[in-house]
């Protein structure tokens, strides 16, 4: 049993205040050598702030951190590294133009004796042996930009090992990975455990915590609610600790009665998308399933005019439309809530109000001038309706947590008054409480007669909320399942139809 290792790291009474918010209010926890300590909590619970403090990205206002029983100061990322603390962020910090080996040994390049020249042979050999320790066989001469996300993550972990990592912090590492890749990541984590590395593992996916964790600590509103060895808690208890109340069900009852057809897609082709046809009815939640890279986001972007369409027709409310840009699509009544809200959704320099009004600013503009009081009223209205947790609508959106940021993007699209709204991975990196709110909201929109398309990699979610599910594989729509026929198995068999060999989702 690894959890009997000595205490590696202990934080005590950590307080961190931001203007108007107490992000951490006296948090204490410890990490033993060779254990995986999972930290869970809703967005805004303070997980990211805690990680930033451990990584040296920001300082705590109060509290102590001890490593091997000695008090330490982590006042910069370099200090964290010297202490053997490495963080694998959600957004990977690799240098895309450099090779795998160069990335792994970045800043630690072996040089020829008494010279400034890099010893290339040693560089490649060292990188190779580090990857071998992880059981990985990536060609170390490849450029990192050509690697998959999972491989890039391995490069980062190898980099951490090269720096004699003692504490590895993984922040939502599995969000961009396929099940197969998650499986091999867990293999790597187990190897590190065996070598007495302490792992702090942050994730929203509770099933992962039960698979890989030894202990779990739950944060809520900047405080530790409770913690326990994994073996002694169940899923319901964790959820109750996280949200602070009993959550009876994961998916709301969405009383949906689909009406007439609102959108018809006929023989759509674009890039990898080949001959896709389907239709969505008013008030329907149409799910789109498929493996990563099956072309779901590409299909959404094409319907939205963001990518060029090669062929096929789009019919909205009985009339053919031809959106050539997002602007034209929005004017037709289509909205797209993109995946990766920070990259494709939000303007992080702007505040909540400006982000909400962005796609429909025209409705608040007269003679070119933005009507500021009406804009403030709209921001206040949608913030209240979606329960966006922000001190007020003029705070910068980058001060909000992931779930609240997602709500801001949602508010933007609700305010654009669409007839058809496409959600691309709307609940990625969002906690259970907010997920439930998003599902409920989708139900409300559907009842108002809006057609909804949901793209999601979470099959439970898709099955839980969709009235029909279209399944894509390699750019083609391989089938449409009615709610009663939709099971994980039926979806996966359609999603892997063209893959004769192994199915990477299992």
């Amino acid at each position, binding site marked *: 049993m690894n959890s009997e290792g000595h205490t590696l790291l202990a934080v005590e009474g950590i307080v961190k205040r931001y203007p108007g918010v107490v992000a951490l209010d006296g948090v204490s926890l410890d990490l033993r050598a060779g254990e995986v300590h999972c930290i869970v909590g809703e967005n805004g619970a303070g997980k990211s702030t805690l990680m930033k403090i451990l990584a040296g990205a920001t300082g705590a206002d109060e509290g102590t951190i001890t490593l091997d029983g000695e008090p330490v100061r982590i006042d910069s990322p370099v200090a964290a590294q010297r202490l053997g603390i490495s963080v694998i962020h959600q957004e990977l910090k690799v240098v895309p133009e450099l090779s795998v080996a160069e990335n792994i040994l970045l800043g630690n390049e072996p040089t020829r004796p008494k010279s400034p020249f890099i010893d290339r042979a040693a560089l490649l050999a060292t990188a190779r042996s580090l990857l071998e320790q992880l059981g990985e066989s990536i060609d170390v001469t490849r450029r990192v930009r050509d690697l998959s996300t999972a491989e890039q993550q391995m490069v980062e972990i190898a980099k951490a090992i090269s720096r004699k990592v003692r504490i590895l912090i993984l922040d939502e590492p599995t969000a961009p990975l396929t099940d197969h890749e998650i499986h091999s990541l867990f293999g790597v984590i187990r190897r590190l455990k065996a070598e007495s590395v302490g792992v702090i593992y942050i994730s929203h996916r509770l099933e992962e915590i039960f698979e890989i964790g030894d202990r779990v600590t739950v944060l809520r509103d900047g405080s530790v609610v409770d913690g326990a060895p994994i073996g002694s808690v169940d899923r319901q208890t964790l959820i109750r600790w996280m949200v602070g109340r009993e959550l009876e069900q994961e998916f709301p009852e969405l009383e949906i009665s689909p009406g007439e057809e609102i959108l018809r897609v006929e023989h759509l082709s674009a890039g990898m998308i080949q001959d896709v046809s389907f239709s969505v009815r008013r008030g329907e939640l149409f799910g789109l399933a498929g493996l990563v890279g099956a072309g779901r986001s590409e299909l959404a972007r094409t319907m*939205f005019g*963001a990518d060029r369409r090669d062929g096929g027709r789009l019919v909205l409310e009985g009339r053919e439309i031809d959106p050539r*840009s*997002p*602007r034209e*699509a*929005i*004017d037709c009544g289509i909205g*797209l809530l*993109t995946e990766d809200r920070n*990259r*494709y*959704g*939000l*303007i*992080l*320099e*702007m*505040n909540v*109000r*400006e982000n909400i009004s*962005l*796609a429909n*600013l*025209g409705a608040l*503009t007269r003679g*070119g*001038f*933005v009507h*500021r*009081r009406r804009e*403030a009223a709209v921001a*206040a209205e949608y913030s209240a309706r979606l329960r966006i947790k922000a001190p*007020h*609508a*003029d705070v910068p959106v980058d001060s909000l947590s992931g779930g609240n940021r997602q709500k801001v993007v949602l508010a*933007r699209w609700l305010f*654009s008054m669409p007839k058809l709204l496409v959600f691309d991975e709307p609940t990625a990196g969002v906690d259970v409480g907010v997920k439930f709110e998003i599902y409920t909201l989708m139900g409300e929109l559907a009842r108002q007669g809006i057609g909804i398309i949901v793209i999601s990699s979470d099959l439970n979610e898709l099955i839980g909320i969709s009235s029909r599910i279209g399944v894509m594989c390699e750019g083609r729509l391989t089938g449409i399942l009615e709610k009663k026929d939709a099971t994980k198995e039926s979806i996966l068999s359609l999603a892997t139809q063209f893959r004769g060999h192994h199915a990477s989702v299992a």
Partner: protein
Amino acid sequence: MSPNAHHGRSRALAAEFGIGLALILELVLFALLSPHFLTAENLLNVSLQTSITAIIAVGMTFVILTAGIDLSVGSLVAVVGVLTTLLLAGIAPVGVAFPLAIAGGLALGAFSGLAAGTLVTRFKITPFIVTLALMTIWRGTAFILTGGRPIWELPEGFSLLASGRVAGLPIPTVIMLVVYVSAHIILTRTRFGRHVYAVGGNLEAARLAGIRTHRVITAAFVISGTLSALSGILLASRVNSGQPNAGLMYELDVIAAVVVGGTSLFGGRGSIIGTFIGSLLIGVLRNGLNLMNVESYVQQVVVGFVILLAVMIDQWRRR
């Protein structure tokens, strides 16, 4: 006014606070060092001297807010000055020549901006390269048009544009104030202004929110070109001639003013008020050093250090 909106405004003002403080310190310092500094006549003189680059800095702010850069502004000053004076000298009745020459000069500036914007958005060439090319193209054109010699024979009255006064203020100062107030209103109150910030903050997210990003970027370059042309005409009037080597290195002075004013070179963050203070900071510095008879070579060194200092203070304050 809701308390929230009020809060937002005070935060925006705080952003200019540091650099504003630097300007005040500078004013106090020169007032103590030189008895001539704090006279009405000298201050009007500063405003006149600063106005030429300060007007260009407004256009540069638009471009930099979209995450671009415009290196062509100094050469545009020259080629527009040359074109305007050529038209003035060449067209017969003065009554026709004036409006035509000025319109022609402004049109050339707008055209240059349109060309830059089109090359950046449609042909996907980075703003740095596009405007670097335009910079040498316009400089060369200015020399070709004049055969390398300044244009002197101008109708009487042209110099009044720069030397005349309205309500006691030099005309260029008045123009500068009008440009700043308009630009501030456009950036803070209009939809276009909002789109400028959005495009510079996150280009792809702005496009996916339905903003016509190509138009916004092109419009920023057109504004920059037109305001450079305006400055070119004012400068030609001030020296009462068309000089092909006018406006040399203006692009660097202007970029310095914008950056000192707190606008981010990565786009999406900055303000016209900041640019105004940044322009004044550098203009006042030059004037003060002149009054103290500091040699011009030494002035360059001092200005360089002050730019660094101002940006360092700004960085430090942001933390």
